[in-house]
């Protein structure tokens, strides 16, 4: 187990480097200048200066300077050379708060002058994680329950109706589901607030909307796994020795049937917790998903790289966590 974790953690920087290189290459090719104001056009020399300031005039310089800042190498070398201490002293002398120097510096946002990418991520990631976690919880409850019901009596009316529901969950885009939920439960019934974030009530509708595609997938995985498991010998044995049906279903069959769901949970959780552009927009959730789209539209290079690297890191770590869980739940898997 330790071996696996170590190996994966060693792979992490390599994978991230590849993702970084490819994403930056693509983002660099996006046409348009991130520093251009739509209406009031700065003079060409002004644009040129700003390009120089942010290293936007040279791909290799940007590539390496960003890499140094984001990996903490700049911070380490500044700390070693005593530059950080000097900055703090200077600030103390003038009676002002010391400049904030994060170890992993993801750079400034080009579109939003007053914000660094670190601040943007720090503000929006927790929100996306909360919403994603709630959505995965709801998806688990709905998905496992309908999956088990379907598997107990395959091809029955109950099974068919769960199939229909999960088909809807997968096929209907979330802006449709979200808008309908918003209209019915927020505007007509008034049970939930509109365009608000922060109260427990405000999480419900976006979490449900976000959960549906995951729930549908989990339901199908659970059903398949359960049908397989219920046909296995050990289930016949359990029933033969007189175990109660509920205990057979939940204790014996589900335990094995859940394994495919578990492996799906890793990428699903990473996906749900880094935010969905559409759900965030419909429900005005200040999460991270919007930045994936907006940053590209604005060609905000630093922000694009920031959110992509965070997403990639989360995806890799969640997959690792699932692998560890997997081995812990099912000791048969080793090597």
């Amino acid at each position, binding site marked *: 187990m330790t071996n696996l974790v170590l190996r994966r953690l060693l792979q992490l920087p390599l994978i991230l480097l590849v993702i970084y290189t490819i994403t930056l290459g693509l983002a660099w090719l996006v*046409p348009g200048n991130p520093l*251009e104001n739509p209406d009031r056009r700065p003079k060409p020399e002004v644009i040129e200066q700003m390009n120089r300031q942010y290293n936007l005039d040279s791909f290799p310089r940007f590539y390496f300077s960003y890499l140094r800042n984001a990996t903490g190498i700049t911070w380490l070398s500044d700390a070693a050379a005593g530059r950080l201490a000097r900055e703090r002293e200077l600030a103390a002398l003038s009676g002002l708060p010391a400049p904030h120097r994060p170890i992993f510096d993801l750079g400034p946002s080009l579109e939003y002058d007053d914000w660094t990418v670190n601040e943007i991520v720090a503000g929006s990631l927790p929100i996306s*994680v909360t919403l994603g976690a709630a959505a995965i919880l709801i998806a688990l409850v709905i998905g496992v329950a309908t999956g088990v019901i379907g598997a107990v009596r395959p091809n029955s009316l109950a099974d068919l109706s769960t199939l229909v529901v999960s088909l809807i969950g997968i096929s209907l885009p979330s802006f449709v589901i979200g808008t309908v939920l918003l209209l019915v439960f927020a505007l007509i019934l008034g049970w939930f607030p509109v365009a608000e974030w922060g109260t427990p009530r405000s999480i419900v509708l976006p979490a449900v909307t976000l959960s549906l595609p995951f729930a549908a997938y989990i339901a199908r995985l659970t059903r398949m796994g359960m049908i397989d498991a219920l046909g296995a010998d050990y289930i016949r044995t359990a029933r033969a020795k007189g175990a109660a049906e509920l205990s057979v279903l939940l204790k014996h069959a589900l335990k094995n049937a859940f394994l495919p769901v*578990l492996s799906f949970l890793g990428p699903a959780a990473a996906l749900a917790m880094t935010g969905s552009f559409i759900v965030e927009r419909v429900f005005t959730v200040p999460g991270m998903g919007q930045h994936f789209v907006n940053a590209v539209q604005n060609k905000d290079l630093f922000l694009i790289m920031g959110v992509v690297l965070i997403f990639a890191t989360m995806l890799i770590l969640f997959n690792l966590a699932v692998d560890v869980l997997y081995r812990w739940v099912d000791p048969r898997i080793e090597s």
Partner: protein
Amino acid sequence: MLRLLLPVFLLLALVGASVLSDRPMPRADFVFINRGDVNTLDPQRMSWMQDLRVARLIFEGLVQNDVLSDDYAIIPAIAESWTVSEDGLTYTFHLRDNARWTNGSPVTAQDFRFTWRRALLPDLASDYVGMFLLIRGAQDFYDWREQALNDFGERQFPSARARAEAADELWEHTKDRFDEMVALTAPDPLTLVVELERPIPYFLDLCAFAVFYPVYGPLVSQFERPDPVTARLMRRPGWTKPGVLISNGPFELVRWRFKRDMRLEANDLWWNRESLAIESIDIPSVNDPNAVTLAFQTGSVDWVSDVTAAYRGDLLADKLDFYREHAEEYERLKAKGLDPYEIDRRLPEDPRKHIKATPAFGVYFYNFNCRPILADGRPNPFHDARVRRAFAMCIDKQAIVDEVRRLGESVAHTLIPPGSIGGYTGPQGIPHIGQARNEAEREAIAQEARALLEEADFPPNFVVELLFNTDGGHDLIAQAIAKNWQEYLGVQTRLTQKEIKIFREDLKNHRFITARAGWYGDYGDPTTFLNINQSQDGNNDRAYSNPEFDALLDRAAAELDPAERMAILAEAERMLVEEEFPLVPIFIYNNVQLFDSARVTGLTAHPRSKNNLYLIDILGDGKGPDKPRPMRPARSAEPAQ
């Protein structure tokens, strides 16, 4: 089994902890949804309307516009009074002695010197640096600094340390140079003297523009240090955050969460604190157009500054129904000369009346590429003014306003919205095909246009491209125009839709034949619209270059008599919209807002549509005078000096 449930418990704990840690604040007295998210709170870096609107709440400049008066007069703010020299070149501002920064320090003339110097540095790349270059010596200072930085970049240094020290030295020297070169002085802490390069009749209007509002030097300079390699002043973000920001306006920033919300509270140190009728303002960030409208309808928002939902045309149609139902009362109120918000306030309560469409200080138009050769090397038929005139005549502007936009906007015949600038009377423009009263007249206009094309040898197989950006309904307008041109001129057309960033690149590099455009004025003078057609202007997408037009603007700049100057500018505009047609104005934008004027008062109905939100009063909340604040008629024909 327990092992299986572990991830579930983990998730549950996460959600619970997060919900408990994030407690919302009580609702503010006034909640509004801004045009978009604020990009920056650094006044000298601003250019977006939503940023400037918030800047006018948390900062305060020398003077301000009286936004609730019909003449938009300049009235005192930090400056209690001012004098202008006979030749119109020297402005002396006398600052009030009770203006304070939020940390208690007095606001002094030095603060303005610091701020304007900052705006003048090429290092800061302020979008509006051009306005500061009107000060005597400013252009020389700007050029000097630019040159000094370039020279620095080429110099060799024995060590990095020596380079960094030289960078600091250059910065110290730059400050001295500013003092020597730029005619901006503070004979005492409460007197600011500005000398201009040439008389600028709208200079006070510029001083009311938020980019001229002061920032607190001791704070800001901590966040701006010369870069040890390039010697350019490097900006670090951070000083515009709550708890750090030191400002001098009616409100104070207490919370700003990125793309989430902003909270302002009344600034107890503001000199005119007792005039405030609201104590707190919330600006939630809502980007979905439908969610914005819903938020207003459920009552969580008091004012929506820009309604963009696709069905806003239907909402406005409903409002017209409402007016028709109360036609008699409506006409009676209108005859009294009341402003539209006041009329709505006096009409019976009805949710349909909350939507308001008022003319904005901006115009929608189509650009014609005026270069002799197109980007692909072909000769450009639109280089010929006769061709441009023919195409301009054959746009049914009325149909676009009535059937495509459906926002009650007015057709534009001129580039400058009529009546928006005091003392200026623009030209008439030429009739367009939509004004024809019958088929015969229509045919006559089309015939005249076709004759012009023939005269100009318009190539018969030339495909006229209409370039526009995605979203915003520009596609429908382009379709309508293309259909007009096909029908009346018999030309072939092609619609090209591009993503906004690429669209802008194409415009800037003149890679188009005709393209949609829009322009909003920045200050109350015709030049804010006319300058974009100067040969050398950075916003001259049309590549229109006419020495006669440029000469007219130069003549106006040198003219000391205000009436004569306006007449010259009107002649320049006439040249654009009656003879040369580098562009064809289509309609004047309307601002579409949502608010209940029986509840919210203090919003301006002036076409310049620049709101000073500290004037807001919520009627019936027991705070402030709770009296309606309608638009007042102009105090005098001439703006006060």
